[in-house]
């Protein structure tokens, strides 16, 4: 019995030892595996992936802060539109009422600080019981501080962005503006709305704010002096089609859309179409010379007015003799121009106008573009009146790009508001021959030296151009007392770089100009002023002082007197 007992005990002990052994082994194995994994990981980290450690430091990577709408810059990188952070005040009316505040008391305090908030509106919003109700949007930091000082419960601020135009009204018609939620409503803001909302959608315009400022100021001075309704100004690079300036007056401050009143929102430079008058004689002459219908020595009888049906065409400065082609342009003879146009005929006239882009709506990067008004049926009278810029209405921008093409060697570029990068290939169309363009440059220079454009003659840069004075139509009749006075000048004439157009709508004659309000008195001085100032700005060296005069016998020789 005892022996059996001892044996059982022995067996039990043995089993226990075995179990212990196994358990230790399993535990050891598990730990061994885990340590192996750890060792492997250490080797992996230290030897194999030593320099691929993830970067722990996260820092703001970009220099610029993220805004919901990208910046717009001018061609020199000056900021012209940006989004600035602001705070909008809203009320959690439930919390406000639960705190036991009196709406009238709080409203009185608030409307004293915030002039745009009326008492009634404040009371209504404060007592509404809604969780979210805007009180005033886009507060100034000072206003925010003052509101915080009041310590009214339930008032909170929401961070928002507000579109800001640092130059104010300077680029209003180019940039357009946005609504309170930052959506583009007009101008570049509208046409590039999608791009501006995308990250890194910064736009660089072809506009130069300095040139824009000079043009706007010169135009404004003329409008004030001649009590005009408005005006437009365009400066275009004739080699690329880039617009350095695009002004339409009156304008508005895009920072404050309440200033868009009357025709301030109307873009006269691109949306408005006008009968531009005698500037069209340049196109008429270019057409006639380029197609070979007339040559520069031909003469036309301008001694008596032309009769066509009920109308008669007469000259503003009558010469009562036969005029050569250069004389017709320099003296701005309607009679002569009409005869040249009749030689050419309707088809040729239409073809050249079409080539110069005057029959179709211009393509430019803003939505405010006006379609030209052209005759439906091209009668004989249309041919004659179009030759001197009546019976066809185009936008100033359109005309500027057409005249650029005539002066730059005969290549038409479509106008653009975006800066063209160096080396970028430009779509261009040849519209007239190089030779015709050269002749036209000489003729344009003659107009400024001897013709109606004398007031545009800059001392430093050779300007060539043409005046245009057109009576405005009112109720189907031409009114002599409301007119469009415009001048287009290209400079420097020896190697054209820029085409400057100034248009004044409805100038009134004044004492200084002996009661005249014609283009030579109103618009030509604007162009001179602009050329004189932007020439040095754009780093252009002045034209050579000595200019060869044409001698008698040269077709370009013009005797002014007699």
């Amino acid at each position, binding site marked *: 019995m005892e022996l059996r007992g001892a044996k059982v005990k022995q067996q039990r002990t043995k089993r226990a030892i075995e179990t212990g052994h196994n358990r230790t082994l399993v535990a050891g194995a598990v730990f061994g595996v885990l340590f192996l994994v750890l060792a492997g990981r250490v080797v992996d980290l230290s030897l194999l992936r030593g320099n691929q450690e993830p970067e722990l430091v996260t820092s703001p990577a970009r220099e610029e802060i993220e805004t919901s709408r990208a910046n717009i810059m001018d061609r020199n990188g000056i900021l012209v539109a*940006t989004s600035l952070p602001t705070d909008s005040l809203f009320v959690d009316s439930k919390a406000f009422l639960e705190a036991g505040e009196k709406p009238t008391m709080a409203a009185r305090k608030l409307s004293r600080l915030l002039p745009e908030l009326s008492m009634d509106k404040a009371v209504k919003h404060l007592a509404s019981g809604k969780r979210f109700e805007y009180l005033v949007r886009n507060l100034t930091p000072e206003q925010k501080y003052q509101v915080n000082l009041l310590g009214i419960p339930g008032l909170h601020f929401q961070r928002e962005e507000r579109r800001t135009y640092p130059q104010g009204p300077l680029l209003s018609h180019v940039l357009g503006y946005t609504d309170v939620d930052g959506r583009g409503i007009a101008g570049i803001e509208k046409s590039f709305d999608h791009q501006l909302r995308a990250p890194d959608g910064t736009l660089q315009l072809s506009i130069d704010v300095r040139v824009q400022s000079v043009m706007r100021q010169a135009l404004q001075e003329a409008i004030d002096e001649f009590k005009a309704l408005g005006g437009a100004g365009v400066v275009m690079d004739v080699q690329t089609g880039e617009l350095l300036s695009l002004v339409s007056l009156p304008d508005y401050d895009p920072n404050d859309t309440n200033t868009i009143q009357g025709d301030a929102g109307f873009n006269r430079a691109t949306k408005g179409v006008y009968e531009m008058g005698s500037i069209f004689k340049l196109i008429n002459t270019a057409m006639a010379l380029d197609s070979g219908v007339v040559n520069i020595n031909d003469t036309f009888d301008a001694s008596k007015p032309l009769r066509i049906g009920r109308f008669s065409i007469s000259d503003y400065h009558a010469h009562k003799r036969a005029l050569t082609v250069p004389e017709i342009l320099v003296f701005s003879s309607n009679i002569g121009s009409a005869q040249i146009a009749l030689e050419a005929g309707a088809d040729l006239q239409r073809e050249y106008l079409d080539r110069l882009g005057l029959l179709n709506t211009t393509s430019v990067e803003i939505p405010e573009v006006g379609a030209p008004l052209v005759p439906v049926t091209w009668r004989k009278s249309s041919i004659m009146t179009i030759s001197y810029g009546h019976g066809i209405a185009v936008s100033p921008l359109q005309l500027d790009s057409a005249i650029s093409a005539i002066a730059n060697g005969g290549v038409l570029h479509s106008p653009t508001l975006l800066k063209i990068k160096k080396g970028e290939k430009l779509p261009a169309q040849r519209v007239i021959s190089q030779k015709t363009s050269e002749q036209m440059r000489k003729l344009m220079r003659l107009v400024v030296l001897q013709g109606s454009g004398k007031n545009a003659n800059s001392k*430093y840069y050779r300007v060539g151009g043409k005046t245009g004075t057109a009576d405005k139509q009112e109720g189907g009749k031409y009114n002599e007392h409301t007119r469009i006075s415009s001048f287009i000048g290209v400079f420097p004439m020896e190697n054209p770089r820029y085409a400057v157009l100034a248009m004044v709508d409805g100038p009134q004659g004044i004492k200084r100009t002996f009661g005249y309000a014609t283009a030579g008195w109103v618009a030509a001085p604007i162009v001179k002023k602009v050329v004189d100032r932007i020439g040095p700005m754009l780093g252009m060296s002045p034209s050579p002082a000595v200019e060869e005069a044409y001698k008698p016998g040269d077709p370009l020789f013009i005797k002014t007197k007699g």
Partner: protein
Amino acid sequence: MTRLTIALTAFLALALSIAVFRITYQVDELEGRLHSLNTEILDEQETIHILKAEWSYLNDPHRLEVLAKRYLGLEEMTGEQLITLETLDQQPPATVENPKAKPVKLER
């Protein structure tokens, strides 16, 4: 021997845990600083953004023109103020204050 080992192990464990705690706290502190620095950077960037807009506003060409005329006596630049290197010595000498002074000959 065993006692020594135990004492050493205990000491090491204590020292290491203290070191680990210290490092953890240091990392926490550094992360806090990093966060506040990042916030500061964002604030500064926002300020810069606003200042850039203000710079652009203050540099409005018309405003500068008025200020330059009023305080600096500067006038608008004209074409005659631009010359090329070729025409440099053809320029008439600038107004000479002392009539006896000879005009300086410019070397190219």
